[in-house]
């Protein structure tokens, strides 16, 4: 696509969209969003970039190949689920670590496997869709 306006706008938009996708991922536990939606938005951001600058450039911007990202995500999700199993709960039970307190109300913030799992979902969706799109685009 040889549109200067689109190409120029894309550089700005893509970064914003990508940050927005991370924002959607992180807010998902309480507000509309989550790993699936975040992954979709992240994928759209890179698709816009590849439409503007070509798949080769987009691949370079991603640094890691999308198939690897998808598999990495699947592995992270699995590990997040296995963690509870290792500490003695049924597989995929959410584990929470309260920092600066002993419950959700008193803690300053929490570390939990649920978010780790959601990050895995995000990466699978992002990588899966991008590996498809890039393959389509490169198929000339």
């Amino acid at each position, binding site marked *: 696509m040889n549109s200067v306006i689109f190409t120029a706008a894309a550089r700005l938009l893509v970064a914003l969209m990508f940050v927005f996708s991370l924002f959607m991922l992180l807010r*998902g*536990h*309480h*507000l*509309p*969003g*989550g*790993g*699936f*939606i975040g992954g*979709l*938005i992240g*994928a*759209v951001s890179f*698709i816009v970039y590849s439409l503007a600058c070509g798949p080769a450039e987009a691949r370079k911007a991603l640094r890691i190949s*999308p*198939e690897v990202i*998808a*598999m990495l*995500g*699947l592995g992270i*999700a*699995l590990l997040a*689920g296995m963690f509870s199993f290792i500490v003695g709960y049924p*597989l*995929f039970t*959410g584990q*929470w670590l309260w920092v600066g307190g002993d419950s*959700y109300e008193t803690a300053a913030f*929490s570390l*939990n496997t*649920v*978010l780790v*799992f*959601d990050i*895995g*979902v995000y990466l*699978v*969706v992002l*990588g*899966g*869709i991008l*590996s*498809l*799109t890039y*393959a*389509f*685009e*490169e*198929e*000339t």
Partner: protein
Amino acid sequence: MADNSDPNAPWKTLSGLGTTALTALLFLYFLQFLAPVAAGEPVRFVWDWIPSLDISLSFYIDGLSLMFALLITGIGAMVMLYAAKYLAGHPHYDRFALYLFSFMLSMLGLVLADNLIALFVFWELTTFTSYLLIGYLHTDPKSRRNALQALLLTATGGLAMLAGFILIGITQGTFELSELNAAGSLADQPFYLGILILVLAGAFTKSAQVPFHFWLPNAMAAPTPVSAYLHSATMVKAGVYLLARMHPSLSGSDVWVWTLSIFGAVTAVFASFMALRQTDLKQTLAYTTLMALGTLTMFLAGSTGYAITAAMTFLLVHSLYKAGLFLMIGVVDHGTGTRDANVLGGLRGAMPITAAAAAAAGLAMAGIPPFLGFIAKEVAYAGALEMQLWLFVVPMSLIAFALMFAVAGIVAYKPFYGPQGELPHEPHEGPWPMLLGPVVLGVLGLLFGLMPGIAAYYLIEPAVAAVMGAPDVGGRVKLWAGFNLPLLLSLITFALGFLLYQRHMDLRERLARIEARAPDLDAGWDRLLAQFVLYTKAQTKRIQTGVLRQYMFATFSVFALTVLVTLITRDVGGVALQFTGLSFMEWGVAILIIAGTVLVVQTSSRIVALVALGVVGIGVALIFIMFSAPDVAITQLLVELLVVVLLALAFLKMPNLDPEGRQKHSLPNAVLAVAVGGLTTVVLLLVVDQPFDRRLTDFFEAASWTQAFGRNIVNVILVDFRTLDTFGEIAVVAVAALGAFALLKGFARARDAKEEDK
């Protein structure tokens, strides 16, 4: 002989010796059961396997299974030791050792299993492992073909047998053989005939009864140790074992007596003539195996003490001499380079030990006193005279045994004492691991004959008791039973057999002429298989057209039809469409969706159709927003967007829509589309008509914050309450993406390769 260039050679030898030692240990383990089983105390082990289906892994050691277990492990150990020498230096010897050991274990499981389903599983395991063994020389196309033939034939029979077992399980309420056999004959039960036919189909294909016999001689494509093992105590005896095992349940009807007598007798006589006709000694032995299987089947038709004793004695004696003879043929082949009966002769000087072992096995086969074979033949005649169809069975046995006598001469006498022909190389004696088996087996045949009481007490009588389902009176197995009709028949057999041996060259020529005119079942099998392949190809071509539109048409037709039939048969009453009370915005979205749909159907441009479809999707997303489901709406919107992008990328590479093609298919397509849409609407309205069940909603609303510390219920369900589902879904996403990626890249690579070729 070991190949020094192979760095793994010591390991391969070790794998062979290891499996041999394990098998020998198993043999010793089973020896301890001899005394309790002979005293009438069978042993049973049970583990739960699939309790919900009443299938347990239960093992039962009684006289019958113990005799088989000892033969399987005892002969197995000798064959494995033999193979270690016979196949030494073969590049895949380790594989062979694994196959043979797995086969041995499957066979052991088969004879020990007390549960019909477990028996079936082991049955099929022997089929698969024997497939690997028969096709071991896999570079030879004939070997592969024969292995496949054995697999298809016996596995098909096995499936029929499974159906029979399931019928038994359903009608009798148990899969346990010990319970079934204790309950007595099923002959007056419903489905008896069906059960019998299905089970016999399994037994007859496995034990190669005419007309399913042709796979067995072909299975000789395997290396000699495999033939020795499969065709003496194992594989082919599995069918006979099944008949014996289920004798108490399945016998007791005229159908049983007639079927087994006729199939068995025809197989026995046919096979003995065929054995005489062969010149390759291995083929000769293959047909004598068939003869033995026929004889065993024939005697299992009976239910009297002598008939069953005959079957069990003959089974024992045949396993011993047949394994010995096969192994002996291997030594001869190894030592001279040929197995041709016309060439071999005068080997007694060069191969004295082999000659002695062959003589012992041959005398047992011919049924000469004082070998156990003689006793087996005496008991067999006594049994035949007691049979319901004695008028048919006695002459058939006489012919078969006389021919066996002649064949024993060809196999065990002529190569060592007859005139010597042109041998490929100077004969030499085999190494000791290859001689141990034939010698031990030959000695056993003689010892059991001299001391029939021991064999009878520990092996034969417990087995007879197991088959008859009641303790046996015993005392039938003895070397000298006095002057009686069986002895007279034996003498006639010897005379007739000697005559046949004298004239066997002449007979062979005549048989060859008859064979040339007879229908060739083996070639028929190939034609059948070829026809089947043609049929499946035609069928695949018809069903798998490769046109996506046809697949979707079929899928949606089935969907519409099932929904329609359900709606009609369930008499769900009417539904009413309500258009009152719709807001302006709701009307607007509905019109948007309808307009998009009309455009999709009308346009002849793919891109326009795609965008119009996007409009429909965004309309649906708007509905989600109006009914306050923001998560679903966002997802819907993004997915619509990505679908449009992905399809647009794909469409760029596709030709424009063909207006004529669309016109041609439009009427049925339109009917189907309206039907699917209309029926879905009706079903949805019916669902909405029901009062809404709030239990799940209430639970998640209450638990989402207290248990999972999240306020977005949708996301909490996704990543906490139903994480396993989500994990499954993302796994699907990842695998689908990888699959599509591989397809696209694979096409690109194949095309590149093609272009390079040009």
